[in-house]
C-alpha cells in the first residue's frame, strides 16, 4: 500500500529499490551512502531478499554481475570513488547485457576528495568510466520523492534494456529528510521462475542442454566484436529516443536560461525567483536524464534569451553538454562550486545577474 512518510534520503532510496523488486543487494561502506548497506542488512533478509557485504566495490559489482547473470534483480549503491572502482564491472555488464540498478550518492573529488556533495562524477557516469564503447542511462533526481520513483522503476527499465541503469543523486539527497510517498511492493521473482522470465540467464539448464546459456563479453574475432558493439549501439540509439527526460520552465521568453540538475536545480528555482524580483526573467532547463542528454530541449529557447548558464557542482563538466545543446546560437557561461561547496540561491542569483549584465 502506498504511504506517506518522513524519511532520510538514503533509507528511502533503499526502500524504493526493494519495493521495485530488487531482491539482492551487494555493497561496501562509503560515506555519504553507508545508511544504504546498513538499511539493507537489516531489512532485506526479513523480506526474503539477500544482503551481502562485499570485500570491496570491485567485489560488490562482480557479485552484482553474477547475481544479475543468474537472473536476480540486483541493486547496488556507492559513492564517487567507489563508483570509480566499479567501472570495470559496469563495462562488463553492459557488454554482457546484464541488468542492474545502480545508485551513486556522489561526493567531491578528485582522488578521495571529500565527503560533501558533488556533481564532479558527471563525466564518469555519462561517458562511461570503464573501457570500451558502451552507454548507461543516468537518471538525476532533484528530490527524494523523484529518486524514490526512479529507483522503483529502475529494475524494470534495466530488464527492458538489458543494461545497468544509474541513478545519480548527490550527498545532500542521501543525507536530508523529506516526506515521501512509498509505492507498493512489487513481488520478488522465485529462483524457479527465473528461467521462464529471463531465458538468457544462467540458472542451470535442467534436462535440456540445447538451452544452455553463456553470459560473456570476450570476443576474440574483431569482426564478431564489431558486430556486437554495433548491435549494442542500435539499442543505445533506441534508448536515446525513448528514455530522454527533461523539465523546462519559462525558456521561451527568458532573459537568461539556467541549466542545472539534481540539488542545484532546486537552488536554481529559488534563484529564478530572486532574479524575477530584480526584473530579470530566468528560465530553467533541468535534465532529468543525463544520458541520454536532452539536447533537443535547447531548441525551445526563445529569441529574447541573451545567455545560457550551466549551474553545477563541478568544473564545467555539465557545461560541455550544454554547449552541445546550444551550439553557436548563444554564449554559454558557468556558475559553479566544487569540492563539496554548494552555492546559495542568493549567490547563484548574484552571479547570474552579473553574467547577464556583462552579455546584455
Amino acid at each position, binding site marked *: 500500500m502506498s504511504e506517506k512518510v518522513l524519511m532520510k534520503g538514503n533509507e528511502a532510496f533503499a526502500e524504493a529499490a526493494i519495493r521495485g523488486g530488487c531482491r*539482492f543487494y551487494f555493497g561496501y561502506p562509503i560515506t555519504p551512502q553507508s545508511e544504504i548497506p546498513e538499511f539493507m542488512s537489516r531489512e532485506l533478509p526479513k523480506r526474503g531478499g539477500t544482503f551481502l557485504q562485499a570485500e570491496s566495490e570491485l567485489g*560488490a559489482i562482480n*557479485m552484482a*554481475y553474477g*547475481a544479475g547473470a*543468474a537472473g536476480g534483480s540486483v541493486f547496488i549503491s556507492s559513492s564517487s570513488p567507489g563508483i570509480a572502482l566499479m567501472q570495470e564491472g559496469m563495462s562488463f555488464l553492459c557488454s554482457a547485457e546484464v541488468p542492474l540498478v545502480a545508485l551513486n550518492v556522489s561526493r567531491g573529488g578528485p582522488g578521495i576528495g571529500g565527503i560533501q556533495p558533488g556533481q564532479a562524477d558527471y563525466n564518469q557516469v555519462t561517458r562511461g568510466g570503464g573501457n570500451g564503447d558502451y552507454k548507461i542511462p543516468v537518471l538525476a533526481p532533484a528530490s527524494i520523492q523523484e529518486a524514490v520513483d526512479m529507483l522503483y522503476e529502475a529494475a524494470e527499465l534495466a530488464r527492458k534494456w538489458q543494461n545497468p541503469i544509474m541513478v545519480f543523486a548527490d550527498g545532500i539527497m542521501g543525507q536530508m529528510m523529506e516526506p515521501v510517498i512509498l509505492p507498493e511492493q512489487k513481488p520478488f521473482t522465485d529462483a524457479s521462475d527465473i528461467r521462464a522470465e529471463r531465458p538468457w540467464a*544462467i540458472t*542451470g539448464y535442467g534436462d535440456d542442454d540445447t538451452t544452455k546459456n553463456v553470459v560473456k563479453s*570476450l570476443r576474440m574475432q574483431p569482426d564478431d566484436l564489431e558486430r556486437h558493439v554495433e548491435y549494442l549501439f542500435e539499442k543505445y540509439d533506441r534508448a536515446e529516443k525513448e528514455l530522454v527526460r527533461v523539465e523546462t520552465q519559462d525558456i521561451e521568453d527568458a532573459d537568461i536560461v539556467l541549466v542545472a540538475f539534481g540539488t542545484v536545480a532546486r537552488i536554481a528555482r529559488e534563484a529564478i525567483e530572486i532574479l524575477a524580483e530584480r526584473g530579470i526573467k530566468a528560465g530553467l532547463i533541468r535534465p532529468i536524464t543525463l544520458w541520454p542528454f536532452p539536447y533537443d530541449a535547447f531548441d525551445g529557447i526563445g529569441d529574447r534569451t541573451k545567455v545560457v548558464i550551466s549551474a553545477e557542482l563541478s568544473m564545467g563538466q555539465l557545461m560541455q553538454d550544454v554547449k552541445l545543446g546550444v551550439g553557436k546560437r548563444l554564449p554559454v557561461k558557468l556558475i559553479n562550486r566544487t569540492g563539496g561547496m554548494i552555492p546559495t540561491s542568493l549567490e547563484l542569483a548574484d552571479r547570474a545577474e552579473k553574467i547577464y549584465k556583462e552579455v546584455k
Partner: protein
Amino acid sequence: MATPVFEYTKGMHRVDTNFCPGCTHGIAHRLITETLDEMGMLGNAIGVAPIGCSVQAHKFMNVDMCEAAHGRAPAVASGIRRVHPDKLVYTYQGDGDLASIGTAEIVHAAARGEKFTTFFINNCIYGMTGGQMAPTTLIGQKSTTSQDGRTKEQAGNPIRVSELLSTLDGAVYVERVALNTPANIRKAKAAVRRAFEIQRQGLGFTFIEFLSTCPTNWGVTPPDAMKWLTDNMLPYYPLGVYKQPEKQDGEVAK
C-alpha cells in the same frame, strides 16, 4: 552388437580443442564435467571462468556458464550462489587470475565460507598473455618477465595457495592434486567428486588445486612438461588434503 567400453562424456561439447598440445586444461575440464555428469548435475550446475586460458571453458563444458573479469570469479560465483542456492556452482581459475589479481576475491569468498567450489589451475605461469611470471612461478624459473629466472630478492617467493586458504575457517575442503600421471588424475577426479559432494551438503567453501602444465610457455615438449611438473612443482607444492570436514559418525575419511 559391440558394447562400447568408452564413451565421450556428455559433459563436454564435441568441438575441437584450442588448448596447446600437452596442456592439462583438457584433463581438468573433463574431470569436472564427467563428475557432474556422473552426479546427474550437469543441468543443475553453473560455472564461472574468468580471464586467462580458463575463459574458454564455456566452449567445452556443457554447463550454463559465464565469463568473469580478471580475478573476479569468486565474487561472481558468490552472487550466483545467492540467487540459486540449490545449484552446484564452481569457478575455474588460473594462477595469475586467482593468486595475483584475484587474491582479495578468493580469500574473502573462502573466509565467508561461500558454498561453491573453486578449481585452481596452477601451472606456474601466465598462459594466455604469453608466459609472464605468475605469483606461483618457482624460484629460478624463467618467464618472459623473469628472463634470467625468478629470484626471491626481486619478486619474493611463490605463493602456496592451498596452504594459505586452508587457514581460513570458511574453507572446509582444500586439496592439491596433480595432473601428471594416470594415478594422480584418478585421485584428482575423486577430489572433484568430494568437493562437489561437500558443496551439496552446504558445509562451506571447497577448493581443489590442480598442478598443471604449460609446455608452450615453459618451452618444453609435452612429455618433458609432465616430467618438469613432477621434478620441480611437486617438491614446492606438496600434494595432499590440507583441510577436510570433521568425520561424521561411522564415516571413514578418504
